[in-house]
């Protein structure tokens, strides 16, 4: 019983390694920069969520604003990432990278306006 299990786990770890390698090779540094920001946002969101569960959710609006800003910024950045990704060029015919960045900036401003309003 131990045999096939270890082979699948080694296969999946192999796969993860090949994934990382493929990622490192095929991703431009610009996208990697965005990915670093995404990772930061994700960690920040997770920390806030854990704090909310373990410690307190007392100013619930403040938690929602903080967590919402992380999630919102995350998805907006992820949108930017997929829009500027050369692989998706065919899908976003009407959105040039410059326009994508302008959209991103506008979305972020609107988002943080509401976040700021909601902090209380």
């Amino acid at each position: 019983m131990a045999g096939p299990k270890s082979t699948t786990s080694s296969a999946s770890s192999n796969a993860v390694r090949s994934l990382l390698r493929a990622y490192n090779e095929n991703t431009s540094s610009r996208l990697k920069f965005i990915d670093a920001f995404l990772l930061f946002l994700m960690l920040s969101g997770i920390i806030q969520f854990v704090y909310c569960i373990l410690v307190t959710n007392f100013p619930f609006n403040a938690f929602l604003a903080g967590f919402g800003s992380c999630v919102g910024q995350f998805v907006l950045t992820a949108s930017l990432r997929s829009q500027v990704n050369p692989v998706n060029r065919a899908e976003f015919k009407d959105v040039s990278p410059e326009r994508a960045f302008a959209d991103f900036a506008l979305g972020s401003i609107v988002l943080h306006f509401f976040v700021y309003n909601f902090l209380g």
Partner: protein
Amino acid sequence: MPFAYQLPSDVSPATVANTSSLLRIIALALISGAAIASRLFAVINFESIIHEFDPWFNYRATKVIAEKGFYEFWNWFDPTAWYPLGRVVGGTIYPGLMATSGVIYSLLHAINLPVDIRNICVLLAPGFSALTAWSTYMFTKELKDESAGLLAAVFIGIVPGYISRSVAGSYDNEAIAIFLLMFTFFCWIKALKIGSAFYGSLAALFYFYMVAAWGGYAFITNMIPLHAFALILMGRFSSRLYVAYSSWYAIGTLSSMQVPFVGFQPVRTSEHMAALGVFGLLQIIAFAELVRTHVSSKQFQSLLYASVVGMGITGALAIIGLTYKGWIAPWTGRFYSLWDTGYAKKYIPIIASVSEHQPTAWPSFFMDLQLLIFLFPAGVIMCFRQLRDEHVFVIIYAVVASYFAGVMVRLMLTLTPVVCVTAAVAFSSLLDTYIDPAEPDVLEDDSNTGQDAPTSGTSTAVSTSSPAPSLKKAKKAAAAAPPAGPLDGLVSTVTAAVSSSKKAGKPRGVFGLDTRIAVLINALGMLFFFVMHCTYVTSTAYSSPSVVLASTNPDGSQHIIDDFREAYYWLRQNTPETAVVMSWWDYGYQIAGMADRPTLVDNNTWNNTHIATVGKAMSSSEEVAYPILRKHDVDYVLIIFGGLLGYSGDDINKFLWMVRIAQGVWPDEIQEPNYFTPKGEYRVDEAASSTMKNSLMYKMSYYRFAELFGGNQAVDRVRGQQMPKVGPTLDYLDEAFTSENWIVRIYQVKKDDPLGRDLKTANAFAQGKKRKRSKPQVRRKAVS
């Protein structure tokens, strides 16, 4: 290729483009004009006045904004409503409508146009209907083309289903909400189409405006996730969907929580969980797609697929678990009443008692939509032919809204836009086909096709204009689209069935000028009758303010019945400002708005017990009702009585709902069957049950009614029943005012007797009746 008629060939494409865009702008301007003008019947026939019930509250709140500013409005506590509880107005309303008129008011005053706030309120709905026409044009343009958009704009501009909620003076949330609904949907499909975060953010902003304006925002909250979910199931996930949905949801949800009345609901109630669930699902799928582009290993991909499904199921289970633990509120009763039409009558009679919450009658579909209701299914089927993402949206919208419109009369309003859009698509396809001058190619077998083709052309009236390529395209599409998702198989079957309904071989199309003209004249005739119908329905059915009634004199001139305002102004002029008026909740807002007096209950039906208290007072006998009235400091009781004039919306006809609502709280004291005759009839004449005859409402309605007929037989004209010669007597109330046509009757509650007698005895003494002999004897016995 032969042509049925000659087109000028010496015009440059630029000129054609410029001219058509100019014509479009002119057409849109005219449509806006028509939309506004047809809503002005109410102002012309009556006057510039706020209509009905809820608008009176909105008007009153808007006056507070205009006079005191937004912050005062935000913190407004209204001590006169729901006496003695009061109402925190700022936190219990959707402020979008009032804020909009407040902004318009200050803008106009900033440029030195001193427009009265009442006129802004009255004309707000017609003004926004022009914007609705424009946004429907934009929406339909995305779906088909500009000409369909113009048709949709005309339809929504004058269709009675929308006019019913947006005539001048109907100053209600729906007045601006339909514009916001259509524009949010337009932004959504635009965002989805080009994958733009800009349009996603714009959709979120207008969604925020919608949340601030109307409780029906939940429709958008569930429509967009449903659309996204359907697209995922059809195997149509794309980065564009991710961009559009994520930007809309992230900003829209956060912004919707800024409205105090909504509060934390978007993360705590089941109504909003679908949106959250789809958001999570999209994140997982997007991540999986990203990984898939980097790794091509087959095994890894299947592992990934399994984990996506697993995480989706886990997420759904988590939401269900949280609901059971009580962290997420379950569906509300209002929501259940949408699925089970009998639910509200059983558990929440106060919702069922509102006439606009009743199921829709079949004729009202025709009355509200006329020819559009026939074109609607055709348009939906035409959406299947192209079936881009936005067509899927319209199909889902059509199905969902049709159901809701069947359940509740007022939800006809949400069906109307999609009916206009799809009908415009169908109608403009018809026009495109028959205006297009291209004749089909005639094959070598001349005699055969020449006779057959015209008939087949008319039978498939909505076939595409260029037959040969479209046939190929349809075949190609059928062949090249393997079913990618579980839904897609079904959809492609339907699509194939729709598009390949024609046989191969024979040329398809329209031959000759006469066929074209025959069809086009019929089509124009239909449009003409549509306009006639809309104008007729608008002017007769939907333009009555219901505060002012109209009747016709024998010579045909109009007679205005102004009893409501007469009575409200009597209250305003003749009673102290603190006099508490009790009435059924329908009239609460009007009393507050026109008479400016405190009321016990009003149309903001938030406190069922309080309403049931009023219902109990109305439906029990004088002796029982009097302590209730005194405890609530009631000075005046106002009732609506239509028996003299034949005004059917009066309180006796609403009386059973008062009984039912009171019964819900005091089942031991009030029982509905007691108000019927032994045969089970609802009667007010001699045969009425004794409980009915003794009820306060009955007594107040028919007090001194028989005297009016001077010895002749008194007749109640609403119920068509003959009243007893001797009417009821009142001991605890005094008649204070009765309006010209007896529609409004106001009674004053007597104070306690100065000598400490109970009021019945005092009244009997004042009328000179002897006291009953037994009473003193009993007392003497007790002493000795």
